[in-house]
């Protein structure tokens, strides 16, 4: 079955209605302006596990929402 995401405004809706919104986080131990810019632009945690992310409900209420997802299973938490 296809992935479903719960929108606080519209309820449980299929993945295809949403656009993905990445949340890049530069770790604190990356120091120096250049290093932080480089990390922000390109480097990613690419976590195998639970991540916090944003989705834009493009074909619904057109608002951003936050979600927690386990990237190993695509289970929405």
């Amino acid at each position, binding site marked *: 079955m*296809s992935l479903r995401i719960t929108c606080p405004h519209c309820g449980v809706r299929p993945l295809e209605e949403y656009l993905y919104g990445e949340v890049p986080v530069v770790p604190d131990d990356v120091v120096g302006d250049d290093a932080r810019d480089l990390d922000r632009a390109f*480097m*990613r945690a*690419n976590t195998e596990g639970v991540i916090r992310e944003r989705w834009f409900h493009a074909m619904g209420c057109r608002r951003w929402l936050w979600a927690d997802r386990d990237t190993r299973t695509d289970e929405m938490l």
Partner: protein
Amino acid sequence: MNEFIEAKVALQWQQPKAAYDVVIVGGGGHGLATAYYLATRHGITNVGVFERSYIGGGNSGRNTTVIRANYGIPEAVRFYQRSLELFASLEDETDRWIMHNQKGLLWMTHTEHGMRAEKARAAVNTAFGAKTRYVEPEEIKEICPQIDLSGGGKFPVLGASYHEEGATARHDRVVWALAEGAMHRGVHVHQRAPVTGLLRDGDRVTGIETPDGPVSAGVVVSAVGGHVTTLASMAGLRLPIRSHPLQAFVTNHYAQAFDAIAASTDLLFYMSQTARGEMLLGAEIDRQPSYSYRSGHHFLESCAHRAMTLFPFLRDLRILRQWTGICDMSPDYSPIMGKTGVDGFLVTTGWGTWGFKAIPVGGEQMAQLIATDKTPELIAPFSLDRFARDRTLADRGSAGTH
């Protein structure tokens, strides 16, 4: 093995040693090719390949097997052209039938802008050694009689680039041939052997952790496909990689011969016929990063719909199977190979949706780097430090598919 293998592959399994000169993590095409070329070109055989599942169980056994060199930038055209040539002689070299089949690849376009892009592709290919020319609709119809040039009235085919040396090969046979060739020369390949950590001495990587204990290594090579970020993080290294699922499917048997590989930049799908006569289709990655092998109906629906626009005969076929692989996507659609800034730790990654064709050249170049400790010229542009040096290699010819 299966119905496609005529003689048993001679794989000699051994117990892991406590130390190897070279440890390769990941028994996909790139890991095994690196081992194969270390053994055959440099006589380096004290090599251990550690695969957590079975060899070829990752993307190397899940891809749609397109081999092509019609990329969009000089560095890539040269690199993939080398792989095309290595692929063409791999059968003779390994004495294994890998079902290498030169089919020709048509890359169709339906817009003015796309016509310029395909003409530019043909020009850059010709200049840097790949055989690609721009073709008009009449010739497209000759090469691929099943096409509806009107594109269902919506996507008329205005032209295409034609890459005569575009080919396919049976993916798991490639993996087995390389494993066999390496093991025959003394390389150890271990299956069900996950690498769970990296041994470090200060900042230097000195070996691996496995459930059966530590194994020390002169150098550790990461060839773990979509899981590279997790392994690299054990060396304290962050990478510009996002792992995305990529899906594909095959139909039941199509009675006619479909000789070419057909692709459309604007419709974002590609298709070829397997040796069994099935039509094999793929398209773009899933948008959200994920490690889940879940396949979805939406992909089937949208990919099939786009493909039927150009190939109405597909309407009469049925979908037999679909599957998913996890791709290590780089931000510029080019590979990331070689030294990492962490001593003793090399990567071969950023193979994304396009790395099957690069298995021979990737292995050849990584082996040369390991044997000489110098980055070969062919892969110098692809090193990880290009992001810090502001020398990214954005390649429209890579396109994020096959």
